[in-house]
């Protein structure tokens, strides 16, 4: 049975970011897996086309150990460098430039963290870095909180998409404030990608049902008991949520309505 048969949207509903078309609305990270092999198995199962990577120092004492890059072939995956771990606009800009040089594109998942404990974004510094990098020709995808005003400013600053969190990075608490996400989506012209906090398939499905363009996740896969199987679950859940959003759900009622005819009963 063909893929299309299962998902009528297959190939007909790409995710568009900065005029580039992506076959999957699911973007996955590559951190925290037990091995490179497990990483690649999970990514493949997720069906993701875009995957994020971090920029870090080469370990000089272990430089011979095989790099993740050997497993992520550019023709198979679109690599999106992030600026994770940066606490100032300057640091984030520095990492973004290194990432561009290391990679094949000028796309960056921009993170400027404001607090070590919660990893919540510093929106002021995020705006500043977005302006600088956009001016340098970067395609900037900023990780932000779920505040509409900040999102609108990021759009003005040239962000190619806005990536609000569902809940704190690595928390797995799911979509804590669906209203804010719907507000963002209803007011922004650029794509909205929910980034961080999704913990299981129903979280992903519910998030897509808000009408957003895509979801970025990492821990939900890497920290599952069976990462590859959870990756398949997420792949299906993102498509399910997207299809349900487009299909237009039934209205809810607080009373019952029979599914079978009330006429034609026997005497």
């Amino acid at each position, binding site marked *: 049975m063909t893929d299309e048969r299962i998902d009528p949207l297959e190939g007909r509903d790409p995710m568009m970011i900065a005029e580039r078309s992506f076959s999957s609305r699911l973007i996955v990270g590559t951190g*925290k897996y037990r091995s490179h092999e497990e990483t690649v198995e999970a990514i493949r199962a997720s069906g993701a086309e875009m995957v*994020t990577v971090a920029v870090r120092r080469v370990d000089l004492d272990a430089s011979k150990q095989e790099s993740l890059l050997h497993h992520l072939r550019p023709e198979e995956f679109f690599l999106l460098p992030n600026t*994770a771990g940066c606490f100032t606009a300057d640091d984030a800009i520095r990492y973004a430039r*290194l990432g561009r040089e290391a990679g094949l594109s000028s796309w960056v998942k921009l993170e400027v963290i404001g607090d070590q404990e919660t990893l919540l974004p510093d929106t002021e510094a995020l705006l500043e870095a977005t302006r600088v990098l956009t001016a340098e020709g970067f395609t900037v995808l900023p990780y932000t909180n779920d505040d509409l005003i900040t999102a609108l400013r990021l759009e003005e600053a040239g962000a190619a998409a806005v990536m609000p969190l569902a809940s704190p990075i690595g928390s797995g608490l799911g979509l804590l404030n669906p209203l804010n996400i719907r507000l963002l989506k209803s007011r922004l012209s650029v794509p909205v990608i929910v980034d961080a906090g999704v913990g299981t398939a129903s979280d992903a499905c519910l998030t897509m049902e808000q009408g957003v363009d895509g979801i970025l996740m990492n821990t939900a896969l890497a920290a599952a008991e069976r990462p590859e199987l959870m990756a398949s679950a997420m792949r299906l859940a993102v498509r399910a949520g997207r299809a349900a959003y487009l299909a237009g759900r039934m209205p809810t009622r607080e009373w019952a309505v029979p599914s079978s005819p009330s006429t034609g009963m026997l005497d």
Partner: protein
Amino acid sequence: MKVEVNGTSREFVAGGSVLALLVELEIDPRMVVVERNRGIVRRDDLDRVQVEDGDRFEIVQFVGGG
């Protein structure tokens, strides 16, 4: 001469280009990006740019991240 690489200072006996430094460090140039004194050294320039005494290098690569 003395250089600093990724936060630790070391002797670069042979001397020469940044590429030569990578070779001595047994690092595959295609896998990394080199920052010299806070400025990025384009990959094509690795063999042209000469290492000087006291240079500070950051050699980075892509690793798993979210």
